[in-house]
């Protein structure tokens, strides 16, 4: 299994995502300026503050050359995982439904949260049980998920009761596209791959396709 981890100017968690992916397969960084996924089997759009979060989160990064390639890759069924800022970029790019709005607190919040897996039928969650709880850190200012209309089983992850600190609609923490090959979530599974740093639950997601 070969992961490509996209690096935008202002990405923060790309090295962490790279290291996490290397626990379950090969991985390399993909430069935002190259419209080339270098043969990756799965692409991770990492967290951070691409283009400083300026103008609107994910708004500028989504136009970078690499995203054109990601778009084609996804439309051909390629596996894509967007984490935090990566989730925001995928929503801006129209690869995922909905949008992410400022936390109701209007504050950046970094907290270990519990999320519940509600859809295990997609490649990224096939290693999980329905209702399984994962302990994963979340850290963002703009994580309040909103989407018009009902998403049905495109909702993949929900914050466990009491863990939805950003005000997301229906406690939604992660959603997929209709085909199920593209997943976006606000919590950071790449920061839950080592018991020394708090949890290994993130491997259940990142390791699933491998």
């Amino acid at each position, binding site marked *: 299994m070969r992961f490509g981890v996209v690096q935008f100017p202002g990405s923060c968690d790309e090295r962490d995502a790279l290291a996490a992916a290397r626990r379950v397969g090969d991985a390399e960084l993909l430069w935002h300026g190259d419209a080339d996924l270098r043969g990756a089997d799965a692409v991770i759009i990492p967290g951070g503050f691409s283009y400083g979060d300026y103008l609107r989160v994910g708004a500028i990064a989504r136009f970078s050359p690499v995203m054109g390639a990601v778009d084609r890759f996804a439309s051909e069924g390629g596996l894509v995982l967007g984490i935090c800022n990566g989730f925001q970029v995928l929503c801006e790019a129209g690869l995922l439904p909905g*949008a992410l709005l400022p936390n109701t607190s209007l504050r950046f919040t970094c907290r270990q949260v519990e999320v519940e897996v509600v859809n295990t039928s997609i490649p990224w969650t096939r290693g999980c049980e329905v209702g399984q709880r994962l302990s994963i850190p979340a850290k963002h200012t703009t994580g309040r998920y909103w989407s018009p209309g009902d998403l049905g089983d495109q909702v993949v992850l929900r914050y466990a009761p009491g863990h939805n600190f950003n005000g997301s609609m229906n406690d939604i923490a992660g959603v997929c596209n209709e085909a199920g090959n593209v997943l976006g979530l606000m919590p950071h599974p790449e920061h839950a791959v080592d018991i020394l740093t708090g949890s290994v639950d993130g491997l259940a997601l990142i390791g699933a396709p491998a």
Partner: protein
Amino acid sequence: MVGPCDVRVRVLIRPKAGILDPQGQAVERALPALGFEGVANVHVGRLVELDVEDPTQVPEMCERLLANPLIEDFEIE
């Protein structure tokens, strides 16, 4: 950088009605504490101002970049 025929364009971007606007609410809550009464319907949005050679580009620029039509309305002046 600024060409002779450039036009200054102002784009106002607002949160769509019906979507929670915590920034507006925060301002609305803070004002009375400062002694400002009788304020309502506060909304906070973005202001983008730019010089463009070709103003006909601007609507598309708004649709694709400056605003997110799913959650925001925009107005060009």
